[in-house]
């Protein structure tokens, strides 16, 4: 059982028998009034979006989902293919279901695949992944424009802002929860 204090982006709950994931969450408190928890949730099967406002004291059922350790194998046409590390069973997911995780999927990446009635409906990637920078403009020494970041493309095609000192070919650590650059991999 979850309470409103557990609400956060990514929390998975059951509503009317369907699994939902919280995709946006904010705390609101009209002056001197009670705390309100405004959530936007996505039905993990149909993809439909639901807005709900909760008050403190309300509770939620966790979604009855099965988490399995798998690895990402490869992308085939519009499908992403994963393999269960124990049973070697393969699971396919389309791009929509994979969501932002596609930015971090490189071959053999260990992931948690979420199964609902034996269908893969979501993929959780590690909080931090190492990806190689495939394109970024060089840093002009003595640049005084004052910009503290520049765009870089990594091997999955994902584009993000990195500090100016990052060079092409470098391995960087990305925080997959925010999609932001975290640090560079030394050596």
């Amino acid at each position, binding site marked *: 059982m979850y309470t409103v*204090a557990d609400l956060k982006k990514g929390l998975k709950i059951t509503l009317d028998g369907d699994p939902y994931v919280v995709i946006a969450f904010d705390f609101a408190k009209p*002056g001197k009034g009670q705390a309100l928890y405004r959530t936007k949730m996505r039905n993990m099967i149909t993809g439909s979006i639901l807005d709900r*406002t909760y008050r403190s004291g309300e509770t939620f059922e966790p979604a009855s989902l099965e988490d399995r350790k798998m690895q990402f194998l490869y992308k085939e046409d519009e499908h992403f293919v994963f393999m269960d590390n124990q049973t070697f069973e393969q699971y396919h997911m389309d791009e929509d279901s994979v969501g932002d995780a596609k930015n971090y999927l490189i071959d053999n990446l260990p992931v948690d695949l979420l199964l609902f009635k034996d269908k893969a409906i979501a993929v959780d990637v590690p909080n931090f992944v190492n990806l190689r920078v495939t394109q970024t403009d060089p840093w002009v020494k003595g640049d005084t424009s004052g910009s503290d970041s520049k765009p870089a493309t990594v091997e999955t095609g994902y584009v993000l802002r990195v500090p100016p000192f990052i060079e092409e070919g470098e391995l960087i650590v990305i925080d997959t929860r925010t999609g932001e650059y975290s640090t560079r991999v030394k050596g």
Partner: protein
Amino acid sequence: MNVNWSLARKAARLAARAEIVHHTREFFRTEGYLEIDTPLLIPAPAPESHIDAIPAGGLYLHTSPEICMKRLLAADYGKIFQICHCWRSGERGSRHLPEFTMLEWYRAHSDYLDLMTECVNLLRHIVTAYGGTSTISYNGLSIDLQGEWQKISVREAFLIHAGITMEQALEEGVFDELMTEKIEPRLGIRTPTFIYDYPAERGALARLRQDDATVAERFELYIAGMELANAFSELTDAEEQRQRFREESSSRVKRGQSPYPLPGPFLEELDRMPPSAGIALGMDRLIMLLTGAHTIDEVVAFTPEEL
């Protein structure tokens, strides 16, 4: 170890923050206010049913400096201000931190209408001194501080934006929801907006209107849909205050929250307090508005999660 980049890149915002706080102090000094510094650890926070204090070593971290500042008013400190950290348990969102910075000021022989005028002067001063213009640009909006500021009563706001009366909203228990979803986002869009005369039960420390006891002399200031400040004509009737604290306490107990001890010295001295008005303004939010920050996280050096 590489430099903590998310911290390092806040440098410009933190410099802006320091400057905005400086201009705030400048305004109050020029206006003859005394800056004071009351204890953050207090034995008895004001019992408000929806604000939770954090217990600390048998005392509480204050949720606002209100109780101590009013005791100063009762001892004839006529114009006082304070910029301090306040704590409210469980409040965390894009505009909330459980530890945040409050600007609070009080003036004797004044009411909430005087504070509206002072808000106008304060914000015009800060915004012009900081940004060199009298316009706030936020979230694609351009909010003009120079012209007349909009004023709307809570009653009018419910009729116009929520389509039901304030009384209906209270009766159906949807006052807070409608305020958050329908009304707040529409306030402070072209000019800053004062929304005033809240239902009497929504102002535990506010004076009721003489000509209409169903509402309290209370206003909130909104800019770009964001609540920035909350003000009252202060209640000075100690007996009435004691009664309201009892009611707030019992409503806390009913909801399973622990009651606070009553602030005894405050209640004893309240009768000596001259008619006064007081206001609390969220400094972090003001800094968000002036620096274009979308979340409160961007304007503080550390969020609780980063400690």
